[in-house]
């Protein structure tokens, strides 16, 4: 694991557009949400969905990516948009992972 998480691209369907992040020890979801918003100048569109007893938060940077927090315990879904160039995908993945490390560290500090 790199920085407390493992990234697994979903090659099956979205051909590298979808990446699942697995965080074994958990992360501070609110901290991650705030870090992502700050990284993108508070421009991310937020929405949530109820999946049974689970609340999934969606953060969208239009035409670039969508993050789904809470899809499973310790799992985050990162979906690049089709129009995002390879360079943009690399850059936004990098920023996301940096924010995720911050959120993992925040959780570890609390526990």
């Amino acid at each position: 694991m790199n920085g407390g998480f493992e990234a697994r691209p979903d090659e099956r369907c979205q051909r590298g557009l979808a990446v699942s992040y697995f965080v074994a020890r958990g992360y501070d979801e609110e901290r991650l949400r705030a870090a992502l918003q700050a990284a993108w100048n508070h421009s991310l569109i937020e929405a949530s969905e109820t999946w049974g007893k689970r609340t999934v938060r969606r953060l969208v940077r239009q035409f670039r990516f969508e993050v789904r927090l809470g899809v499973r315990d310790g799992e985050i879904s990162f979906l690049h948009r089709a129009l995002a160039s390879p360079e943009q995908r690399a850059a936004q993945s990098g920023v996301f992972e940096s924010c995720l490390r911050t959120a993992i560290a925040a959780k570890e500090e609390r526990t």
Partner: protein
Amino acid sequence: MARTLGPYVSSPHGKRLMGKEPLVFHCNYYNYFLQKTLLLDDELAMHEVIADAAASSAFATLSNAARGLELGTPDARRKLAEYTFSELGFGTIDLSRVTPSGGVAHVPVSHYGRCLRAASGAEFARPQSYFDAGFAAAAASVIHGVPLESLEGRIEACQSMGAPEGRIAVGPRKRRDAYFVSCGQGGQWAGTPVGPNKDTHVDESAILAALGTLDFSGNEEGLVPRFGVMLTNHFANFYNRISFEFVHRMKSTGLMEAAEDLLVEAGFRCAFHTFGGIMSSAEWDAVIKPQCKTKEDWVHGMVATVNALGWGVWRVHELSAERLVVRAYDDYESSGWLGTYGKAERPVSYLMAGGVAGIMNLIHVGDISRKPTLDLGFYEKVFESDARFFPRQVKSMAMGDDYSEVVAER
């Protein structure tokens, strides 16, 4: 996001309409395997049928919606067409450069252009966006009030062949055959289906209520990434027209039954990837899996989910580890056949047949609860298994029965 759209209207037996056209969810895998089958024999010219079927369904939807919304200007109707394309998961289309005499529609994102490659496993020998071509022609007709019969769309560039964006040239129709007129809802059964099976821990109404809260609209790019696949909220009459016309055109070749077998096989692929994707998804884990105590519950859970797809009402009539019998009330394939051709001489629910067998293959042969990787190797393993299930269509609404029935057995 605020899009001008024809409203979604619920219709009996789980159907949903937009602009009076029934919509059904299908994924990129089914869209690919169905189209691959149809395009096998160049002499059939099925690529023209695909484009024309798209035009017919799109024209019906857009013209009905435009009338209902009282959209009095070309600009308003253009936005309706563009938003509808995106809302339903077909991608993004720019129709601003299409005039009453024609022009080029630009498609920066196309479901058919971009999303079928994940299913094909190989580079394409030909463009894949015939649907986009038909949609563009229909949109031009509705936007500018030009008769649909005078226009056709032609693929100039397709992302499936490596183009950075799709381009569809809309111009005067050169083909002589007339566009097919969509039958709308088609044939419908007026009765009330039996209720969900009670011999299960699965609560279908709760599942449908939960799925009803999820967002299945096309995102800002006009794509619907869900359950690990790319969904389209597609026109039932499009699928019906292209499938049934394919069978018609194969009649004189001595290969009609073979053609039907391949349509069922496309249904197997749909089941494997769409149902497999659903049963492997985080959404399933959260909403449906908690109710599943047995393999039989998994079957009931998947059938309950099918009832959210607009395919009609499926009911488990009989279920064991060796046999599944599903009755479908108002299955969209039979509805479409009845509405277009009248009573059928043979069953026409090919997708249903593949889907019913596919559920049992996934659960009992593929052990989908272990979340295997749904790749070609796994598909072949299941398909080659001596324990796999085969479907038989034993009743058909298209032939006059009250419901269609498929038996899946080993």
